[in-house]
């Protein structure tokens, strides 16, 4: 008989994983939208001599959004570019402590970035910066991008917690994945 009783923390882990998946999906969706926006803009300009209004402005703000949401996903999966020389030679125990230290520094830096980015969103709102063609306020785009950075802080905090208390729950991105 299979024991279906959740172990302590298992329910919370599932909710956390769904939250992480949702953030990754947001990032992935934004990259698709950016590509589609560029493709349609090129086709319209080259073949129909017309353009999507604000395609350039919206494209670059979507790009910012995709990167900040992507940083959230990458930070959680441990996919940042790192120097692994010391880590690779360390014992499993030391590896874990190195990872905890690195993640805490990451958490600190991204938190400072998030606070300072909020200031940028606020200034954009106060200055009432508009897009070129349609005069749409730009601050909501910056705010969505900023939310990506907020997600990054949350995910890095989750990563730190898991590194310390549930290392088996982490699924880091492999280096040099086989893609046939």
């Amino acid at each position: 008989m299979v024991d279906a009783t959740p172990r302590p923390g298992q329910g919370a882990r599932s909710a956390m994983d769904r939250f992480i998946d949702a953030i990754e999906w947001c990032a992935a969706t934004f990259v698709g939208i950016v590509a589609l926006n560029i493709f349609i803009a090129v086709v319209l300009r080259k073949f129909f001599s017309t353009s999507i209004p604000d395609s350039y402005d919206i494209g670059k703000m979507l790009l910012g959004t995709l990167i900040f949401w992507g940083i959230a996903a990458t930070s959680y999966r441990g996919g940042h570019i790192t120097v692994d020389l010391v880590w690779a030679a360390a014992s499993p125990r030391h590896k874990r402590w190195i990872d905890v230290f690195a993640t805490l520094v990451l958490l600190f830096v991204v938190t400072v970035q998030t606070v300072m980015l909020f200031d940028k969103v606020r200034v954009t709102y106060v200055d009432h910066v508009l897009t070129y063609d349609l005069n749409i306020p730009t601050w909501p785009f910056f705010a969505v991008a900023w939310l990506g950075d907020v997600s990054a802080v949350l995910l890095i905090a989750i990563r730190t917690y898991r590194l310390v208390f549930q290392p088996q729950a982490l699924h880091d991105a492999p280096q040099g994945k086989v893609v046939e």
Partner: protein
Amino acid sequence: MSNDAIAITGFVVLFVLMLLRVPVGMAMGLVGVTGYSWIVGPGPALKLVGQTSMRTVTDYTFGVIPMFMLMGAFVSVSGLSREMFRCADAFAGHLRGGLGIATVVACGGFAAICGSSVATAATFAAVAYPEMRRFGYPQSFSTGVIAAGGTLGAMLPPSTVLAVYAILTQQDIGKLFMAGVLPGLLALLMYVLTIALIVRVRPGLLPAGEPRPWRERLAALRLVWAPLALFVFVIGGLYGGFFTPTEAGGVGASGAFILGVLRRTLDRAKTREALLQATRTAAAVFTVLIGALLFGYFLTITQTPQKLTEFLTGLGVGRYGVLALIMLMYLLLGCLMDAMAMIILTVPIIFPVITTLGFDPIWFGVIIVMTVELGLIHPPVGMNVFVIKSVVKDVSFTTIFKGVLPFVATDILRLIILIALPIIALYLPSRMG
């Protein structure tokens, strides 16, 4: 504390943080902002964080990076590597060492579209290695040729490393891409000649396969022509001024998606995988870019590049002597960190030296990328070698490095040729508008 002492302390802290596995971009950003705040004050330094981060990620020109990554991801998950290898094998497999040649050619084609040396090495370790072993190719040659073939990705367009170099040095991304074409093709040709030389020196080492009928060859070609045509269209459009680099990337990514759907090689799960893969890699690169730009303010305020330029030009070893020293530094750094981290960390410091010495910035981009790619395969720490070892478990590092050595020698020769004949890199960019 003098500015020089602050700069030295900054570099020491940066290396300690990087060795403790703090992400390179975050370490650069932290040290850059802290150092800047030490000299100028915390207020302006913290303001830089928000401004630089937002300006970098919303720069439309930088969109070239995620777009070409997405194109590579779509093509990669669609199964192109195996199809390319089959096609190259159908044409060259009957020659002695033909499977090796097929691996190099397929690696070149795949790496050009995929854009990642490490992913190419990992992929072909799974695709080509078992085939070569099945036909009796030695382990050292089989792994060596894959490690070397993987490096072609950094040179053939669209190369992420060249795009990042262009961003850091404010050069034209399209021209940098074009500058990589002839050196990349030269690399491919020289690897094939290396295999031919190995066959000539040790005729019994590499066997020949059965010749394939033209029907089979054409069938194999039919599987790869569409992605290759897309690649030629995108890069040709860039060369002809039809697209900007970001547009070329966007069109390439959308084209790769449409092709994948039409050829039924891209389902929902693979699409999701490609989108996630591109997003994560782009985010990792942008994190380092933001960090590099923040670190750049620190370098500017401490005048580190100017002081380094004065020091190196005062050595009295001539411009090529300085160039040799810089390349030696890159080869040594290649033992410590990956190509992207190396380029982003060092180019803002080294670039003023290069321009002061009168070297062409586009040519130097090609030379520097070639040098760091050499670091991916040269002993004692070649990233590609480690990646192959992680896929092919039953082979030792010594065996792989033994197999790679002829290709390292070829790379060094190619580097000398490109230094002697800069026109190889500069011809195509000079023909652009």
